[in-house]
């Protein structure tokens, strides 16, 4: 091993484009450890604690996305000010106008960075214009904090939340680093009360936090990243070069990748928040255990789906209060926009619409046939299988690089299923398939066993907790550095 380079130590404190900070970065271990120490020291006075946490959060954000950190401060200033004015203003047109100004400014920021190129592309395709794409980099977390801002202002407007008096409290809420990058989308009314009261860290929170952090590491680094790097992304990159069997396994693999990636990151966020005495609502509830698409959306990315339900579907579109047909249309619009939230492409719009239509059909099916279907374990199992495969079908569009590639992928599964050799297929990808299998097995573990395991971790003495986390990180490092798997068609 070579000597320590002090210049590189200094460098590691600065944002690096090649190596932005994530929970699974090496730097984060030191960052979080140092943070925990400082936090414990500053814990006594509420003011110092908030300043310390906010400063750390903003630094974390800077390490993750450079000077884009400015946008979150800007967004916080605008929303804090406007919400306070809205709160004291009498009901009337002016107040409404202010609300719309806040919504407009938030969406403007989101649209500029996320959707401008999509619409330029659309204009170039439809008309004869040849406008160059802006190719702006998307500020990390913008989709999440924009929604948090919107819900705060709307809640203040509706009188559900009393606005904060201190700007630093609002900035703290918006920038709270565990949930900053990949959610969950935290609601002001759930989070703000926690700022005021003096949080305490209990033994339960430490045990549950450890459970969630390690679950997150296993999901994100061991399962998701490995399957994705060695199998899924290669097949989705060029489905036409692979057999239907490979495409189908890549699809099942992707179902695991997206779930483990997303929920693993959220688990780590929730676990870390617990370690500093904050509670964030759970974001995923074993979604592939759902026996209908309606149930799926109550278990998948809960903070987003409930946000869309409360603010878009009910508050804006009127939910189910405008007649049966409008309800259905509202549902489809909500899901379509929800799809568009995920990314600026036709793939996401189609994916959203697909889920919207499925939700409508599910509701219709339930109202016509629901009473005839016995609620047995068997019928639930059939429901789970159908729902899972529908969700997977949607993932094809969600993950494919282009809309055309999605169809190539489907065509491969239907018409060209057979791999060149089944033996090589299973032999070559065995490690990936085993991990996919383990992922699904863990996913279907009953909640009571999960809870019992959590309780076990709560009760274990600190040295065992240390060894447990140590082993978990050791395994993760091994997986992170594992040799790449060669595509099977390289091995004859």
């Amino acid at each position, binding site marked *: 091993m070579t000597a320590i380079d002090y210049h590189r130590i200094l460098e590691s404190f600065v944002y690096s484009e090649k190596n932005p900070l994530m929970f699974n970065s090496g730097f984060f*271990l030191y960052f979080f450890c140092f943070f925990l120490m400082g936090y414990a020291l500053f*814990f006594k006075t509420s003011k110092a604690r908030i300043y310390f946490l906010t400063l750390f959060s903003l630094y974390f954000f800077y390490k993750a996305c450079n000077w884009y950190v400015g946008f979150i401060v800007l967004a916080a200033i605008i929303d804090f000010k406007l919400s306070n004015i809205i709160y004291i203003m009498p009901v009337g047109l002016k107040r409404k106008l202010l609300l719309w100004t806040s919504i407009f400014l938030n969406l403007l920021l989101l649209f500029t960075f996320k959707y401008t190129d999509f619409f330029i592309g659309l204009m170039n395709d439809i008309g004869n214009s040849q406008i160059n794409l802006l190719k702006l980099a998307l500020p990390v977390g913008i989709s999440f904090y924009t929604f948090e801002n919107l819900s705060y202002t709307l809640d203040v407007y509706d009188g559900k939340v009393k606005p904060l008096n201190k700007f630093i409290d609002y900035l703290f809420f918006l920038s709270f680093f565990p949930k900053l990058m990949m959610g969950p989308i935290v609601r002001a009314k759930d989070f703000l009360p926690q700022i005021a009261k003096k949080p305490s860290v209990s033994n339960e929170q430490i045990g549950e936090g450890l459970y969630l952090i390690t679950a997150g590491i296993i999901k994100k680094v061991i399962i998701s990243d490995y399957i994705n790097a060695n199998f899924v992304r290669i097949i989705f990159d060029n489905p036409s070069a692979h057999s239907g069997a490979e495409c189908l396994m890549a699809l099942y693999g992707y179902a695991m990748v997206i779930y483990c990636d997303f929920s693993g990151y959220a688990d780590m966020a929730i676990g870390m928040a617990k370690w500093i005495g904050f509670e964030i609502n759970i974001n995923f509830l074993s979604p592939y255990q759902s026996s209908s698409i309606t149930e799926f959306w109550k278990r998948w990315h809960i903070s987003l789906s409930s946000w869309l339900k409360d603010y878009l579907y009910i508050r804006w579109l009127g939910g189910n209060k405008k007649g049966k047909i409008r309800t259905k249309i509202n549902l489809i619009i909500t899901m379509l926009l929800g799809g568009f939230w995920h990314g600026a492409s036709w793939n996401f719009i189609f994916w959203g619409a697909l889920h919207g239509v499925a939700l409508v059909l599910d509701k219709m099916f339930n109202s016509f046939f629901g009473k005839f279907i016995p609620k047995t374990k068997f019928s639930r199992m059939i429901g789970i299988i159908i729902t899972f495969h529908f969700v997977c079908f949607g993932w094809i569009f969600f993950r494919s690089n282009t809309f055309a590639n999605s169809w190539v992928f489907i065509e491969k599964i239907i018409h060209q299923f057979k791999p060149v050799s089944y033996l090589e297929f299973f032999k070559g990808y065995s490690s990936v398939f085993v991990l996919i299998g383990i992922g699904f097995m863990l996913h279907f573990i009953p909640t009571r066993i999960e809870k019992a395991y959590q309780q076990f971790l709560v009760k274990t003495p600190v040295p065992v907790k240390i060894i447990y986390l140590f082993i978990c990180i050791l395994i993760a490092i091994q997986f992170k550095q594992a040799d790449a798997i060669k595509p099977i*068609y390289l091995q004859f």
Partner: protein
Amino acid sequence: MKDKLFTPFIILCSVIILLLASSYFNVSSIRFLHLKNIDLLSDIRKQQSPKPLPLPIVEIDSVIVNSQYKQPTDNTMVIDYGVDSNASITHFFAKLDAIKSNPKKMRIAYFGDSFIEGDYVTDELRKKMQLAYGGNGIGFMPMQSIVESDYNNISFKSNKNWLDNNFISSPNNTLLGLAGHVFYANGNATSTYAPRKGGSFNMVKLYTGKSTTTNPSVTVAKDNVSQAFTLTNSNLVNETTISAQPIREIKVTSVDNQLPIYGISIEDATGIYIDNYGFRGNSGLLTNKISEDMMRQFNDYFNYDLIIVHYGLNAVSHGNVKFTWFENAQSKLIKKIQSAFPNTPILLMSTSDIGYNQDGTWVTEPGVPYMVSTQRSIAKKNKIAFWDLYSSMGGENTMVNWAQQSPRLAALDYIHLNGLGAKKVADIFYDKLMTTKSHYEKNKLK
């Protein structure tokens, strides 16, 4: 309840200490577990300049003793170790010049692996050569393929009702054609071909084997007008011209489960054609399973003017730098080709660069330069031409750069090319081939 403020800090701090301590254990010595060493401080250690690859000595034969040519000294040019033989690549170059003034047909066979499957590389190479030397058509096409949608130049669709006997499903089948496949109808089997970017097919020929059925036939629909063709049944390989008029689409149908069909050839009366014989996973061992008789029979129709042999990708495995088995197997294949296609120049193309993930960083697979050196030595021993694709595409870490640059030129496995990369490789090869052509023309000594 007592606050456990410091506990998370104690847990994490202890874990970091344990991780730092474990950096000093060399776990990679536990061989059967294939563990990687842990270094929590790798990000802040002094960066060493990357360890240079222990390169094998590459001999560049500037002069082959008593040769009538001065050999090229640039190792990105084609070097012909058989330049004085009857199968010298200079004969191929001479023919290229000849068809410019006196249009004739020339043909190249390109044997390879997944690197070229789906008309990758050959598509662009053919385009360039046909632009310079004439020709209209993709050359040989199979009846069915797992990469049908990859063909960039041609819309190719089979109804998947062909039983495909191939190198993998029936490796000892003596009826496998040059592409490594032989197809039989399994019910009503059809294959449809149409130019993707306008233009027409001027001449289409069908290649079939011996059927146990008397008077075997196929139905051919040309621009939706159907016609039955009775086929010759006497030889191991039989050629039937199924279209000699410009058409926009052709559909071949067979219901005869006893009739071996190899494929079609889309061509014209003159010009140059490149047949893509890419088969995924092939290290060249599989190609050796084609019978010499089969090679001869095909050559009776195709009269190849150049044969490109391009493997290596599937023979390099991590940790290996000795490729004696490959050298022996490849030499055997070359000898078979030399015997079946006498006086046809053979060009051995080296493996491309291959990426390898070394503890999270992609670099060139260390065995690659050794493989290139082995391939050069095979060419030298068998007195055939050699082209170093690895060096010509940029050498060390090229595939890594190609997979990481924008727009990408390589697939995310750091092994294969994407469409853009395939085009680039074809452009480099064409350019180097032409540079070599003028070199040999200028440097004839005697």
